[in-house]
């Protein structure tokens, strides 16, 4: 049979219309001939639109669910490992039953193991999600508490404010300090760079050129922070407020760069 003979059979083969003997001969040739395989693909492209020469009909709505349910079942069965037990020489019916029982038990064990692993993974995923949600809730709660404290602070009579100005080391940083007549103060910052590891910002009350230490604090990714502190009585009327970068645990006298001051 010549190559041309094969080529003349390809279109009928694409239609599955070849008789069995011709089909077998051509199938063998197709395995060896890339040119004919390509021509077969082209004929299939030609015939496919003929499928449109039919009356449009809609399958039942339930079919979609049946297919998706079957696919899910298929997914589960494929995810289970294929365990092929070693064949054993069978001596009698009872030992055969025992072997079958052992195989069944093994398969059951593996299936249960897979199920347990799947459950464990699912459990881990749920735990991770819960942990993330808990963190988000805590963060939101913290922000709400801060907002509430601010509202309470601003509602107090005789509230006073001090605005801190950025130093050249952090030109976009801003901070405000609000404090009441008892010295209860709240510092709110924005735009401060994140402190390096082992470092924190520290508030200072400067009276007569002498700095008095306040609390340390850190910032979020936007350089924001809100911190409460108590202004010493001596600093209530004549203090300058400043913020420096210091060791995380705080220091009695400033050692680092000043970022903000009033």
């Amino acid at each position, binding site marked *: 049979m010549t190559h041309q003979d094969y080529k003349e059979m390809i279109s009928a083969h694409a239609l599955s*219309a070849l008789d069995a003997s011709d089909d077998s001969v051509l199938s063998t040739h197709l395995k060896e001939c890339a040119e004919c395989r390509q021509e077969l*693909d082209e004929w299939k492209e030609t015939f496919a639109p003929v499928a*449109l020469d039919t009356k*449009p009909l809609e399958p039942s709505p339930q079919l979609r669910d049946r297919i998706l349910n079957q696919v899910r079942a298929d997914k589960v069965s494929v995810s289970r490992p294929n365990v092929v037990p070693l064949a054993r020489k069978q001596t009698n019916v009872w030992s055969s039953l025992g072997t079958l029982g052992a195989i069944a038990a093994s398969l059951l064990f593996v299936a249960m193991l897979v199920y347990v692993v799947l459950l464990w993974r699912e459990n881990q995923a749920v735990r991770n999600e819960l942990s993330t949600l808990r963190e988000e809730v805590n963060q939101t709660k913290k922000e709400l508490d801060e907002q509430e404290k601010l509202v309470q602070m601003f509602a107090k009579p005789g509230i006073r404010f001090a605005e801190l100005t950025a130093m050249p080391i952090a030109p976009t940083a801003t901070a405000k300090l609000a404090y009441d007549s008892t010295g209860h103060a709240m510092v709110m910052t924005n735009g401060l760079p994140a402190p390096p590891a082992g470092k924190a910002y520290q508030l200072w009350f400067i009276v007569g050129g002498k700095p008095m230490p306040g609390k340390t604090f850190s910032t979020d990714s936007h350089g924001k922070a809100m911190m409460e502190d108590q202004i010493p009585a001596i600093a209530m009327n004549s203090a300058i407020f400043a913020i420096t970068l210091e060791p995380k645990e705080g220091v009695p006298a400033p050692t680092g760069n000043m970022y903000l001051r009033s």
Partner: protein
Amino acid sequence: MQPEEAQISDVDLLKAIVRQDETALAELYDRYRVILFSLLVRILHSREEAEDVLQEVFLQVWRRAPDFDETRGRPFTWLVTLARSRGIDRLRSLAARERVALAGAREPSEDVSDAVADAFRSEQRGLVTTALAQLPEEQKRALMLAYFDGLTQSEIAEKLGAPLGTVKTRMRSGLIKLRELLGSQSASFGF
């Protein structure tokens, strides 16, 4: 959803199915259910059989999506080839040709909604119908018996009472003519 309006291409849907994405399979089903179901009903003359085979086809798509090679043809062609092959296998296994001959009374008559008919690409269907109408009747008859009834060339010769050589010649001439007609309009088949 109509294929031309879809954001995700059929090829991308098949790639997602390879990654075991069920929603991609659902989307592909939504796009092609009417075309493939109509084809299978035409082949099998039974809604029940056609639904059964369509379910097999999409399960096969789910399992064999890695076999799809976009350099060899369009997803539409791959799906039609799978469905037609499965449908004809079912037809032959049921030895249903006698049933087909008597099936006029059971020919499904339910029409689909206008929206679904639109989705069925009436324009492209019109192009195919026009192309088939341009074939000489004896060529078209032989091709339709092969395409929708799954008959081999010998079976067609017997059914038409024509010599086998004549049927082969008619089919080949008809196929070449059809390729010319549909090939000139291939840009319209945007699947």
